[in-house]
């Protein structure tokens, strides 16, 4: 099984760290992983995205020309990446920001008002985790235990106190229907 995941949105929505957390959890799960961020000034103001591969075999290319799992947190990203999802793939969308559903019928999509839910939880920054929750629930991309461990490893110490809430956000995402 190869998870080829693209995460995309505005800079500042936690797109890059969501990717790193996934990759880290994948590593703890004993998988081969790679994470590749978009980089440089293109990120400024524009969209940020990162590609994660989690695989049983060595990762051949960290660059994804297509993917089977997509998380999008803004409209331009949906426009840009929708067509890259392979048949049978999954798209998880932050519907508080993105104002349309996917056009394709050969992929599964989920519209979750993640930013709104997060903001109701008192921290907009949890939106990315909520979306990851849905993804993980649907695709078993990584295990929950290792996701939690990954949070501790990837987030800076000063944010560790938030992790229990992040795990709550994850659960909310997993259970959202």
């Amino acid at each position: 099984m190869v998870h080829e995941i693209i995460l995309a949105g505005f800079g500042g929505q936690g797109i890059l760290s969501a990717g790193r957390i996934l990759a880290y959890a994948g590593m703890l799960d004993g998988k081969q992983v790679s994470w590749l961020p978009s980089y440089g000034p293109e990120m400024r103001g524009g969209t940020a995205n990162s590609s994660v591969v989690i695989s049983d075999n060595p990762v051949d290319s960290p660059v994804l020309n297509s993917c089977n799992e997509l998380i999008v947190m803004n409209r331009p990203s949906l426009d840009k990446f929708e067509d890259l999802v392979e048949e049978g793939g999954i798209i998880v969308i932050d519907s508080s920001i993105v104002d349309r559903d996917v056009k394709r019928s050969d992929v599964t999509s989920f519209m979750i008002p993640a930013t709104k839910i997060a903001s109701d939880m008192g921290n907009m920054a949890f939106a990315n985790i909520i979306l990851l929750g849905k993804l993980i629930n649907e695709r078993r991309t990584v295990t929950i235990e290792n996701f939690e461990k990954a949070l501790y490893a990837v987030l800076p110490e000063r944010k560790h106190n938030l992790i229990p809430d992040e795990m709550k956000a994850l659960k909310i995402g997993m259970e959202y229907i």
Partner: protein
Amino acid sequence: MAVIFQKPKALKDTSMHYCPGCTHGIAHRLVAEALDELDIEGKTVGIASVGCSYNSYDYFACDMIQAPHGRAPAVATGVKRSKPDCVVFTYQGDGDLAAIGTAEIIHAAARGENITVIFINNTIYGMTSGQMAPTTLLNQYTTTTPYGRIADLHGFPINVCEMLATLQGPAYIERASLHDVKHIRKAKEAVKKAFKVQLAKKGFSLVELLSTCPTNWGLSPVESLKRIKDEMIPHYPLGVFKGENLEV
């Protein structure tokens, strides 16, 4: 009712890519206003440098050349020497002008090259994510001075205007600031005067503009303006360093 303030013509309609609250945008506008008011856009050739403003040609409406990092004064020299009737300006950051481009700016100044230099001092390399610049203040944290800039290790900040003012070549050198409305208006006069000096064929003119980098300073845009006032101006005093009494 008449329009008393709007985007100058010499700035295109394109929305700029600078971070929210970054005063690069203000500096651009001041240059464009000068081109408008002196009605010289049509004969102006601007030289974009390498830094956040690498693509300032997407914003300025005049003809433009994108120069290698630090070399804008040399490129400008090539333009001015081949087309003396063009108005030529460079737009350079502090990494560009005061680090890699040190030789080029000093020699353009020493030659009294008849060009105008707009020098954006934000005490940091904005574009490449916040490394130390030659203008970084002591104790300032940057991605390459993670423990603060320490004189013993990283040397002292360079005051470009003061240094260039020791040369005979430059006709006009001023340092201005973009941290509030009053100073922006003064800065505008300085920029305009610099172009007038060039039009009068008096030689090299340079305006240093103290500018912000909210993104890499880790401050809000409003806090950033305050930092110029509280921390930068004490080290980089405003004023005219050369050509105070020059009439143009």
